[in-house]
């Protein structure tokens, strides 16, 4: 008898989605799908608005990483106002934006690791869900919980100082930034009372990484093999191959490390990336054109970034990067749970970069904006916490936006997340008739590794809990569980 299992909604991720799993007569997994059921329509209603509104309007897609949208839109509009593509800004403009972005990366990664993922690691996939949550972490591992909260707070304060507000600020404007860093803010971030200073943030980032490495040593089999599969990887890298979260050229590698795309100017992204629409999800499926729909899908985010870049331009993170790369002998890492490892290396990198920038005098003085010859088309890419984020705008001569296309980080990870769900479903559910809570959570653990933001990805509103439904071959609901 065929059965269909639905997991709806998925928990401890941002946004709202459901998973359906079809079982055949022998109760083996036949087909799996991660459905994204929200619809938002930002690409449509930004049309007709004056272009300079886009960075402030479109960031409302998300309350977790609005800065990524804010900056990607601003980067696209830099092109529109003739200020170039990311490296054409004034030193103050670019460095203030970078500080904002590293603050964002730091707080978002801290949120994901401490609040969303640590319950699975500390208590186990099959622990009682009443304990396996952020409150459980706070009760049993107070120090870790406090670090998570304070690291997030530090990043949010950096955003406040650069964007004007912790959430949905206005700092980045076409061609630059609208403010300098104040001396009071600089002093606070560098020499603030413990723990609110950059040295403590670097310490704690290193501490979180040490915690994960220790966990990895004890759970190597789980971390290496859970939902692992080969894939392509795509991200921006700096021209010289360094990890650069704010600006660079597109590079894509396959599972063996062969370069598929390299040194691609993102203004030409349409020549290399295409999006497929499937009827059962509001989230599109992007792929690399020259490899086609079947083979062209790719992963983005921390795992992909550490697979595409050659080195990390900050000393502590570089040291960790070298140890991390040695696990796969320098080859791309295709292990899903290593997303967490890579994410914490990036967290350390973001903290180091913040320290470097905070000591840069350009933040305190200098021209804020620049502009040149007006253009009608602009594309802005950056590496958001969850992966490569594409913003593309077309503007008419009267300054109205006439077209917008957003390919959000999580959208890039659509097929990989589906692949992960499929693998976990096979290994946990093949031949089983009863759905257990740990089975459902295993599916969610795989999705969670990508730190998906489903609200952003469908350009949706609300939170994202997960529910599982089991149907027989006649589409009759025979079991249903909600997390």
């Amino acid at each position, binding site marked *: 008898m065929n059965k269909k299992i639905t997991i709806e909604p998925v928990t401890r991720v941002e946004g709202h989605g459901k998973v359906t799993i079809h079982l055949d007569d022998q109760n083996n997994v036949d087909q799996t799908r991660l459905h994204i059921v929200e619809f938002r329509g930002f690409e449509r209603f930004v049309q*007709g608005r*004056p272009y300079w509104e886009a960075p402030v*309007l479109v960031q409302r897609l998300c309350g977790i990483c609005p800065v990524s949208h804010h900056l990607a839109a601003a980067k696209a509009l830099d092109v529109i106002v003739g200020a170039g593509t990311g490296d054409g800004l004034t030193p103050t403009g670019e460095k203030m934006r970078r500080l904002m972005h590293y603050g964002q990366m730091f707080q978002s990664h801290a949120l994901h690791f401490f609040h969303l993922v640590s319950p699975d690691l500390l208590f186990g996939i099959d622990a009682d869900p009443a304990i396996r949550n952020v409150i459980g972490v706070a009760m049993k591992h107070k120090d870790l919980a406090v670090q998570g909260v304070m690291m997030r707070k530090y990043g949010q304060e950096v955003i406040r100082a650069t964007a004007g507000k912790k959430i949905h600020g*206005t700092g980045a404007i076409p061609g630059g930034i*609208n403010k300098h860093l104040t001396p009071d803010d600089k002093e606070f971030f560098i020499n603030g009372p413990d723990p609110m200073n950059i040295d403590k943030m670097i310490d704690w980032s290193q501490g979180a990484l040490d915690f994960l490495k220790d966990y990895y040593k004890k759970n190597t089999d789980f971390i290496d093999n859970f939902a692992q599969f080969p894939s392509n990887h795509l991200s921006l890298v700096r021209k010289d191959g360094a990890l650069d979260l704010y600006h660079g050229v597109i590079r894509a590698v396959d599972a063996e490390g062969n370069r598929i795309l390299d040194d691609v100017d993102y203004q030409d992204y349409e020549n290399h990336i295409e999006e497929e629409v499937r009827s059962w999800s509001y989230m599109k499926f992007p792929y690399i054109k020259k490899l086609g729909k079947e083979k062209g899908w790719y992963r983005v985010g921390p795992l992909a970034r550490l697979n595409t870049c050659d080195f990390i331009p900050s000393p502590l993170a570089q040291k960790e990067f070298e140890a991390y790369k040695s696990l796969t002998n320098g080859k791309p890492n295709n292990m899903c749970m290593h997303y967490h490892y890579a994410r914490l290396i990036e967290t350390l990198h973001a903290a180091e970069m913040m320290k470097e920038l905070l000591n840069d005098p350009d933040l305190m003085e200098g021209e804020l904006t620049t502009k040149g010859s007006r253009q009608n088309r602009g594309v802005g890419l950056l590496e958001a916490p969850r992966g490569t984020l594409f913003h593309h705008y077309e503007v008419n001569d009267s300054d109205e936006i006439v077209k917008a296309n957003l390919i959000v980080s999580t959208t890039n990870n659509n097929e990989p997340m589906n692949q992960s769900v499929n693998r976990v479903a096979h290994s946990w559910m093949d031949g089983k008739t009863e759905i257990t809570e740990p089975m459902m959570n295993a599916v969610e653990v795989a999705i969670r590794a990508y730190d998906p933001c489903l609200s952003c990805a469908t350009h949706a509103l609300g939170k994202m809990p997960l529910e599982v439904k089991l149907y027989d071959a006649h589409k009759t609901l025979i079991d249903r569980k909600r997390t």
Partner: protein
Amino acid sequence: MSEKIKFTIDGKECYAEPGQTILEAALDNGVYIPSLCYLKDVIPAGSCRICNVKVAGRFMTACTTPVAMGMEVENDIPELNELRVSIIEMLFVSGNHFCPACEKSGNCELQALAYKYTMMVPRYPYLFPEKKPDSGNKKLFIDRNRCILCKRCIRAVKDEQGRSLFAFKNRGNELAISLDHELAENISDELAEEAMEICPVGSILKKEKGFQQPIGHRKFDKQAIGSDIKSVIK
């Protein structure tokens, strides 16, 4: 020297020059009466009704009513403040005022009044009118969705020969401001800036200016509208 006119606002003794309106005299005496369509040195329109006060039991617009000797004006009283909130709410529902993405946010007088009078959510249904923005001018972007029809632009944005760059068009629900594209074709940067400043909301925007003022430096970021008017009444 003409003799000053003695009157009271909420029981406090005030003095006015002959011919002064209640609103002008209140400002001179350091009393805040909220307004939206009023502009200093411009003929008042009395169109927004936010400045309604009560005199001898009757509602009167403070921006158009001259002070009379012995007048007893009621201003900051629950009855009037409640009416003011309801006017603000009606203005919100009759347009598409999306503060989060509006570059006038923090400098917008309608938003500032909503905060001052603690408007939570409008009690009236949103009308969601569809009004096309006018982006045809090189320096100005007109978003009619945010217009509150106060006529400040019509009365105050003028060229060197005193001709208004703006006018009303249509009637009733269709009433809208319209920019005279011929007159405004060569509008100066200064006048375009001034037009944006004159508009109490985000309806008239100077192109390419958006969001240059950081949060924290905007007019109403740190103090409520009207709080700069210090009482001089003993």
